[in-house]
Every structure is written in C-alpha cells, then in structure tokens.
C-alpha cells in the first residue's frame, strides 16, 4: 500500500531557514544543509525547499544549497521559489533537485508548466498554489495568490488547478493562505475538494500545529502527503512521533530503517 508522505518544509532566504506567520514576521530557524540532514536521519519522506526571498542572488544560493544537500540526503528533494524559466528549472534539477515547484511564474505564463513537463517529465513539475478563502453570501471559494502570498490575482484556485493539471503539472502543493502559520489546522475543505478533483497527488500545506491536524489533512482532507514547517523546526514533534501517531490511528506511513 502506498504510504502517506510526511514532508518538512524549509523556507529559505539569504541561505538561512526562516519561519513566519502568513508570509511575514520571519524568524531564523537554522542552516538548511544541517536541517535537511537532520530531517533525513529522522525519517522525512521528502523535503521541500522554498526560496521565499526569490531574488536572482537567492537562486544562486539555493542551487548551492541543493548541491550540498543532495550529497547527504537520499530522499526526494523539491525546490521552489523564484523559478521563472526552463533554464532556472534545469539549473536546480541539475544541482540535485528531483522536483521543482512553480507558483507565480506558472500563473504569469501557464505554458511554462507544459514546457517543463515535456522537457523534464510531469512528475518533476509541482504546481504550488497559495489559496485564499472567500465567503460571499455563504458561497465559499478560493482565490490564487502569488508573489509569496502578497498579490491577489482574482483567479479561482480550483479552476486554476484543474487547468494546470491538464497542462501537465504532476503534483499539487496546496497552501491555505488563511491557515498558514496559524497552527490551527489545515483548510481541509480546500484539500478535499482539490484531492477529489485531480488525478495527481496533493500535498496539504499550511496550518499544522498538532499531530491531530496532520491526521485530519490526510483523512478529512484526503491529501496524499502533509507538509509542515514550524512543528518540526522548533522540535515540538519529531518525524518519528508524527509517524508513530499516524500509525496508531491506522494511517500507512514509512517506518525509517537504520543507517548503512
């Protein structure tokens, strides 16, 4: 049986891991290579690196970080943030990433999804979506936000995701703009709607504060994987504690074996 993936996310800027609330108010959370090695040893199923600075210098720094991480960490690495072109993608993949995630660039130029999927394979192209919840006359919908959540686009998130999968996106990294950083649980209505709509894996992101939240995202939200940052960075929970808990609740997860 395919197991559910537990994915620590490392938000990186200026070569450091940082953590904030709703994309602002950032705190230092360590060295990315050290953090990545730590999570690997703990049994993380995959790692996501997001360059939240998303500057040209940041891309150089990120490529260098990925190169170092790939020599020590033997689980899939997904890298995103500020990737704007096929060349940007190629460089990060060559540095050792297995997948690249695109958000703003895909909204600005949806053809980038198709080009990336054709050149590198659809399984490499993760569409990252920051979805902001709206409730108008009791009709709930989600709007795509870009530029690290700072810019509202007016685009319906569900329509966008549907289109992006048709264009070739192989996986969806779905972040709730509202829940992110608040540690009060994922937006599982959003997670479930997307997971039931598309035939590619969905990674739920934004809002993890407790072990129960992770369980809910997988069961109520029907996500294929859960991503979390702060609960891991501040060592509130180890990956093993997460997996022991999920196992006790009947969720299939990978149990880490010893070192070679």
């Amino acid at each position, binding site marked *: 049986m395919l197991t559910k993936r537990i994915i620590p996310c490392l938000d990186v800027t200026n070569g450091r891991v940082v953590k904030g609330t709703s994309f602002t108010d950032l705190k230092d959370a360590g060295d990315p290579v050290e953090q990545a090695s730590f999570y690997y040893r703990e049994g993380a199923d995959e790692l996501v690196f997001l360059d939240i600075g998303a500057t040209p210098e940041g891309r150089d720094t990120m490529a260098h970080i990925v190169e170092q991480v790939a020599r020590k960490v033997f689980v*899939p690495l997904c890298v995103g943030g500020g990737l704007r072109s096929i060349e940007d993608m190629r460089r990060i993949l060559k540095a050792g990433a297995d997948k690249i995630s695109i958000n703003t660039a895909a909204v600005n130029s949806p053809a980038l999804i198709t080009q990336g999927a054709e050149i590198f394979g659809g399984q490499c192209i993760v569409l990252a979506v920051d979805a902001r919840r709206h409730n108008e006359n009791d009709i709930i919908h989600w709007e795509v936000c870009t530029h690290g959540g700072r810019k509202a686009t007016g685009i319906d998130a569900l329509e966008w995701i549907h289109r992006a999968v048709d264009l070739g996106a192989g996986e969806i990294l779905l972040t709730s703009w509202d829940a992110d950083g608040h540690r009060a649980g994922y937006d599982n209505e959003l997670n479930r709607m997307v997971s039931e709509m598309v035939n590619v894996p969905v990674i739920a992101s934004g809002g993890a504060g407790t072990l129960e939240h992770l369980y809910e995202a997988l069961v109520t939200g029907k996500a294929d994987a859960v991503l979390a940052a702060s609960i891991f960075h501040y060592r509130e929970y180890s990956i093993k504690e997460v997996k022991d808990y999920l196992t006790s609740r009947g969720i299939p997860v990978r149990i880490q074996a010893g070192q070679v």
Partner: protein
Amino acid sequence: MSKNSGKIAIIDYGAGNLGSVINALNRLGYRPAVTDSIAEILNSDAVFLPGVGAAGDTMKRLDATGISRTIRELVRLHRPLFAICLGLQLLLSNTEEDDGQACLNIISGSVKRLPPGLKIPHMGWNQVRQLVAHPVFSGIPDSTDFYFVHSYYAEPLDKSVIAAETGYGINFCSMIIRNNLVATQFHPEKSGEPGLLMYNNFLKMALH
C-alpha cells in the same frame, strides 16, 4: 583492498538526471564513471542504467548511439547490470508508452500503463515484497518501503524473473533479477538507507 578496485560505469545517454545515482555511489565510497563510451561500458565491472524520461526518446537515443546493442551484450556476458525505473521497463519487449514502442527485448513481456482508479503517477513510498532470496536483499527486511515514481509497469512473461512485487491497485513487478541483471521499478538512490544498502549489496556482489 579499496572499494575503488573495480570499474563502475553509469550509462549516460544524454537524458535524465544522473546526479542522484552518482551521489549515492559516492556516499558508499565508490567513484563511478559517467560515460557514453561503448568501450568503457564493456570494460566495466558493474554498470548502472538509470532511467528518467520518456520511453520513445530514450530508445531512439540508445539505438542511435549503439548503446542498445551494448546493453544486450552486457546481459549476454552475464555482466553485473543494475537498471533503474525506466531502465527496468526498457529491458522488456515493448511498452504501451509512446504507441507500443519496441524496447530492448532482453526480458520477454510488455510494459503496461497502471490501471485507472488510483492517482497516476504512482508516487511515493511503497512496500517491496521480496519473492526470492538474493544477496542484493542482504540486510533489507521483506516489505521495506522504497520510493516510486512511475505511470507504467513491467509484465514479464517468465514469472521466475520477478524478484519482488508491490501493490498499487494491482500487484505489479517491482523488481527483476536474472543472473547478474538486477532491475528496480523504484529508485534506490531516493529510498534512504535501504536504497543505499541495495546498491552496496549489488556492488559487493559485482566487484568482490
């Protein structure tokens, strides 16, 4: 004796990302050559055939460069060969990917698309159930999770070559072993410590 006493080649056919296989072998203390030279491949003690990309394009490249014939030759000579993911699929006779593309026909059978109903690609960690005893499994418990990412699976006609199977809607062949040929549908280089151990077992078998 140093681990570098044997020659290891990773076949470079101009597509796919070979970096993760190189990193895994480096971590185990080996220094593989990444090469498209037929002479160098034939002169190696252990050969890796990585596979990322589309079947049609890859077969065209392998045929155009003559590496197809080299791979058949390696198998005929019982040379240690480790094929990964698409590398495993290319060993079969043909594939449903790219309109019934002909493959290397080293293992009789076809490659089929995973059945509808579950998410495709099959992406993530899944159990590899060992069906045979083999040194490549040394120290790796039965049903250990390995990392998969694929939309097609191999169906060999001779079931005795199926060394492991994995469930995803159906039970499919996740590993082929025949003589010194070892092939995995999963990616050992992305499967944490058990994956590294599998490469190490194979290289010990091949080089010592």
